[in-house]
């Protein structure tokens, strides 16, 4: 019983491009963050590790956000920190998605014993708290950026697997997949042409959420001293390094924390908005 007369038009695709105000702001924030990360050496007034002022110096015309606990320029370090934070966050999410969703799709399409085995293992892995897996692996392999990306990416993959499998399982039973099977199509076609286009929306939304979690997780790890290691700096580590400043009434740790919040809020709002748009156009 459609409320609208006639076929539902996908004309609302045009409104996808017409961004409402809030998502536009979020997009701009993210674009600025990514641009800043990419052009850090050009953009940052000082070098990442350069000591240019007193520890916890107050903001000034030279050091807009003041100095950090060693007297380095906070603004420059935030810009460099964005690099690592966004880079690592993207790496983790990309790895988690590639691995998680392809395995999830395979499980849903192949089904049977393959699905059983993979799903059981993922179940067992998911029951481990992610923080614990990260701690154990980092304890074993040391904390470098590749190790972080691999570890957290793999943890992420288990979560994405479930989402991907559920989404694909929903699609696999639809008639058009049966049509493709009846035609004699191979696995690759079914996954890439029949399933992927239909799960891309929800997966993209999930990608945004996972990206936020990745950033927050890395920040938490850094906060525990187990994440990105100096001399590299990510925003979570900056909060930890400068936390003492709060006692002096210095706001240095607040700036990177707010930067994290700004990025993650933007991503989340965009995702929310995107989900709403997808929901609307699917009706």
């Amino acid at each position, binding site marked *: 019983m459609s409320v609208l007369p006639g076929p539902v038009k996908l004309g609302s695709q045009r409104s996808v491009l017409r961004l409402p105000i809030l998502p536009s702001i979020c997009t701009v924030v993210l674009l600025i963050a990514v641009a800043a990360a990419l052009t850090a050496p050009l953009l940052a007034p000082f070098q990442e590790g350069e000591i240019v002022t*007193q520890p916890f110096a107050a903001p000034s015309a030279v050091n807009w956000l003041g100095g950090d606990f*060693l007297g380095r320029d906070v603004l420059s370090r935030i810009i460099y920190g964005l690099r690592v934070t966004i880079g690592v966050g993207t790496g983790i999410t990309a790895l988690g998605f590639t691995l998680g969703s392809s395995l999830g799709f395979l499980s849903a399409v192949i089904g049977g014993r393959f699905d059983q085995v993979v799903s059981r293992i993922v179940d067992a892995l998911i029951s481990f708290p992610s923080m614990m897996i990260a701690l154990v692996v980092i304890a074993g392999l040391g*904390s470098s950026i590749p190790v972080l990306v691999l570890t957290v990416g793999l943890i992420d993959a288990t979560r994405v697997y479930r989402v991907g499998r559920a989404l694909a399982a929903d699609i696999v039973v639809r008639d058009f997949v049966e049509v493709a099977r009846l035609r004699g199509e191979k696995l690759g076609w079914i996954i890439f042409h029949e399933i992927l286009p239909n799960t891309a929306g929800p997966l993209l939304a999930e990608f945004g959420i996972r990206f936020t979690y990745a950033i927050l997780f890395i920040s938490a790890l850094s906060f525990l001293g187990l994440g990105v290691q100096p001399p590299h700096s990510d925003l979570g580590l900056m909060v930890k390094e400068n936390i003492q400043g709060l006692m002096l009434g210095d706001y240095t740790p607040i700036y990177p924390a707010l930067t994290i919040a700004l990025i993650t809020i933007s991503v989340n709002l965009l995702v929310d908005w995107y989900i709403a748009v997808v929901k609307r156009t699917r009706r």
Partner: protein
Amino acid sequence: MSLSNGGPPSPVDFSVSRRTILKGFAGAGLLLPFANAGFAQAAPKKGGKLVVALNAWTSSDTLDPGNFYDSNNAMVGFAVYDLLVNRGPDLKAIPWLAESWEPNADASEWVFKLRSDVTFHSGKRFGADDVIYSYTRLKSDKSTSPTKAFMSQIKEMKKVDDHTVRFVLDAPNADLPITFSDTRVHIVEDGATEFLGKASGTGPFKVKTFEPAQSYVLTRNDHYWGSGGPYVDEIEYVGIPDRTARVNALLSGDVDIVMDLDPTAVPVLQANPDMVVLNAKSGTHVNVAMMLDMDPTSKNDVRMAMKYAIDREAIVQNVYKGFGVVGNDHPIAPIDPFYNKEIPQRAYDPDKARFHIKKAGLENTKLPFYTSDAPRNGCVAATQVYQQSAAKCGINLDLQQIPADSYWEKVWIKQPMLISSWDGRPVPDLILSIAYKTGGDYNETHWKNDKFDKLLVEGRGTLDFAKRYEIYGECQRMLQDDGGVAVMTFLDILDAHASHVKGIKAHPSGNLDFFQFATNVWVDA
């Protein structure tokens, strides 16, 4: 230069209410102690409970003194146990459970007279058997204690009578008494093997509960042999590893005393009339360790470049906020009586550093440098500052941070260049023969010098101060010229307590009055 509050500490209370005023955080960190006129010298009162924040507590915490690994362990240990010999703020040995001692002519045999008025918490009387048992545990083959290295010099222990022990050493050692003031050589009861959750020592406090990383509560030992303290009824120890949380806990009144302050917190606490900061210059140092038998640091030019490239002032100021003293590339601290004042201070000199690194052919070449906060808090930050100052000299340090829990195992004495740190020792011999003696297990630079080794043996067997000063002075010079060690800074020991807590003094050998604050602390209600 001693920063002690004067007077040999003894069980007799010398505690005077003092407020240590520091010169401010950008200052040189000079300590100007004086009696605060605002506080009358009130007599200590009995009673009250205190909560002390330790800088850690882990499940490896133990009451087995030989296996203390951290100062938080020592803090509890010193309240429960006593040493045979204590250490004054001037780093001199002072009688404790031993009333007196006497060496033979070449210091290869020592006779210690023990106090006869001491009982263990269990009620058993303290005597020679306890000393022999305790020390045997440390030096036996089965011992896992780090003290084994220096306790093994005791060839034989003889019970002369119930309160007299004779030590026969494998070589002369003039420093034997001060050696017995190590934080791990406490006296336990003869035959004691069980140290889980309970212990019987002779110390001022008895164990009420000791559950690793959960709950440490001690109660006053009313039969303590010393006069004066202990005063407070109960002390509870809480491990707060996070430095900010530790200070917050003091500020919010959740704890009364905190050990191991972050330098950043000092000005905040100083500005607060309800808080007292304790500060002691110490021999604890942070150093670069360069292996003499590995490339590239086997070249003295590289070592010299590395030494000249350290901006020690910047490290003291920016990393330690002024609470430290610059090092001079040997491990003897300015507060040590044997500190060689004639050696000129090595300063940050980019030109010389560049000259040497060029000569070594490694200008702007990536040199791996390992770092971690495992040696001590602030090491990573100090390395980062070092990296900056070195970069200006054409030295490209490639920092590799290693997780704290595998630093010693994976990197230390295995990589040519890394950061390290040592606790202060009361006499030069103790640090020199541990870390610089040829073939020593902890010789982190593989420093190998026959003359140096000979000097060590000679110094150890010498009882005359002036002669020893010469010997150790030479050792310092040798290390400064040629050694693999580049000392960045000697650190201040920083603690704090609420102002209602009285009777705690600063001590160069360890936090909170060489871990012994419990003996004399009292509460001014």
